[in-house]
């Protein structure tokens, strides 16, 4: 048998004996993802339905100045409530999502046929206020249009004259893309699981083996250092893929359990595509960790890189949050950004072209090969085997 496979088999047997570690590193992620998707899905859906359909209570400053408006709002399921003393503070302190303020001159302006002011106070950075504000604005717009039309009619003018244009937004978001937007954190989970799924094993088989001083006898065998290293990388990849498959199974189960309405493409084909997208990531993560583990003095030092590595896949997500850009081909050549884009495209049910796939895979494999080469160089350094 090739020394590479001998080393791989030994590392997998060795790892399997450490049952508790294996179970924790294999099952934690999947359990977490099921909990997150089911839990967040339920919360999201509840919020949507209650905010859309429930009677909306809106504090109304100066309700007595506009009884007809209050009645119109009530007809449209918006109930005016007692206003707080200071409307601005109430918004700032999140006591109310939205407050309506009818200007003191409302009655005069109304009678004079001039535009009367109704302020909609809200904080646009707060997500919770989005739906109430939209509801209130649309009802107010409806009221304004209705009264305006009546006024024109009473003067013998066709109301259509005052409306040269009807803006009619047509939302082309598919249900899948809508949910995809709400679940922007999911790619991060999958990328992380692929990238660092085998981290424990990689650190243990290189930095750990060195710390336990078992690397020296191993390097005194005729097996080449490159073969030994490749066997270790291979073992970590096998473990990483196992952890990834479990993660994807959990992913599928999560959306099967999630309340109706929270649906993304979790067909077997989509899962296969995700696996294919994440395979180069497993290799990339394993090679990178091998380079790190071979260059440090101890397991502790290797682990101190972990927080940085956890952050790495998040960087593109942060970047996209601050400056959302449209999908372009070059993104598929940027590690982590590419995984993010590819996974979102699969989850949104979009088609990936042959060019997308080849560029993505080529870059992933090339980066991994470079890291593998660096790791092999590290393994040939003399003091690798000699700890302390």
């Amino acid at each position, binding site marked *: 048998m090739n020394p590479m496979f001998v080393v791989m088999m*030994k590392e997998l047997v060795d790892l399997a*004996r450490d049952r508790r570690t294996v179970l924790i590193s294999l099952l934690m992620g999947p359990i977490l993802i099921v909990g997150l998707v089911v839990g967040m899905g339920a919360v999201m859906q509840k919020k949507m339905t209650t905010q859309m359909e429930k009677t909306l209570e809106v504090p109304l400053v100066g309700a007595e100045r506009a009884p007809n408006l209050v009645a119109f709002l009530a007809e449209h399921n918006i109930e005016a409530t007692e206003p707080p003393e200071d409307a601005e503070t109430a918004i700032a302190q999140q006591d109310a999502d939205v407050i309506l303020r009818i200007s003191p001159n409302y009655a005069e302006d109304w009678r004079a046929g001039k535009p009367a002011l109704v302020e909609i106070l809200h904080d646009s950075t707060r997500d919770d206020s989005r739906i109430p504000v939209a509801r209130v604005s649309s009802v107010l717009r409806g009221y304004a249009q209705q009264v305006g039309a009546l006024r024109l009619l009473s003067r013998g003018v066709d109301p259509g004259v005052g409306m040269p244009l009807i803006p009619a937004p047509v939302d082309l978001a598919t249900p899948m893309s809508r949910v995809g937007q709400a679940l922007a954190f999911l790619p991060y989970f999958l990328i992380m699981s692929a990238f660092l799924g085998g981290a424990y094993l990689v650190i243990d088989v290189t930095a750990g083996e060195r710390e*336990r001083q*078992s690397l020296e*006898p191993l390097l005194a065998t005729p097996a080449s250092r490159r073969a030994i290293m490749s066997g270790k990388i291979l073992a970590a990849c096998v473990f990483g893929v196992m952890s990834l498959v479990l993660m994807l199974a959990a992913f599928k189960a999560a959306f099967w359990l999630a309340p109706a309405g929270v649906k993304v493409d979790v067909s077997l084909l989509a899962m296969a595509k995700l696996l294919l997208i994440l395979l180069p990531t497993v290799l990339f993560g394993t090679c990178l960790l091998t380079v790190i583990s071979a260059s440090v003095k101890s397991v502790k030092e290797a682990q101190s890189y972990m927080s940085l590595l956890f952050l790495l896949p998040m960087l593109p997500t942060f970047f996209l949050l601050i400056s959302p850009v449209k999908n372009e081909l070059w993104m598929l050549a940027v590690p982590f950004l590419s995984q993010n884009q590819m996974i979102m495209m699969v989850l949104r049910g979009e088609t990936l072209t042959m060019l997308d796939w080849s560029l993505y895979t080529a870059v992933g494999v090339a980066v991994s090969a470079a890291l593998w080469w660096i790791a092999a160089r590290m393994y040939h350094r003399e003091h690798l085997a000699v700890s302390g």
Partner: protein
Amino acid sequence: MIEANGLSKAFKTRTGTVQAVSDVGFSARDGEITGLLGPNGAGKTTTLRMLYTLMSPDRGSVRVDGIDAARDPDAARRRLGVLPDARGVYKRLTARENIAYFGRLHGMSDADIRERTRALSQALEMDDILDRQTEGFSQGQRTKTAIARAVVHDPRNVILDEPTNGLDVMTTRAMRGFLRQLREEGRCVIFSSHIMQEVAALCDRIVVIAKGTVVAQGTPDELRTLTGEENLEDAFVRVIGSEEGLYA
């Protein structure tokens, strides 16, 4: 047969360069036990590491059965059985699995490994621990496992770094018996020790190393004659110039 010629090795440390070994040369013949004797920190381990190609010498050469270790390290390692200073037994594997792992890395068949493990287990008296995971093994049990693992491929040359270090009296005796058996089988055995009595009891030839250089070498008789001391212990003190490291 292992020949070392003018081996030198320096390490860079924070405080400067340390010349660990300079111009060490000796040859260890087949069917003989050659002892590397010297105080702690004399350069024994570094010398051995160069012999089994873990380190490459700054100057000098190593030949294993005539093979230049620098030119063909894989072939040299194939002819060597090595017990390093760090035993490095895998604690989640059983003793048998530890031995089999190295057998496979040497390209042995499963049948050969099984047969060889049986023979070694008998010679090292480790039948009772063979199928236990090595976690919790005593120092002696670990050393036995590591030695069996080191010679599983039936090498012509065996290098052992302080093989009796930390062993109790009974295990030390068993270990000495095993080393003699290796010699009777016609192998070339090199071991290092900082304990004079140990070397005196076992070795056909002694290479005394102090401060990175060979200060004397020869048979025990030659060493006695060389120094004019009746007693090997006094001879040892005379050649290294101090009593440092003499008693374990």
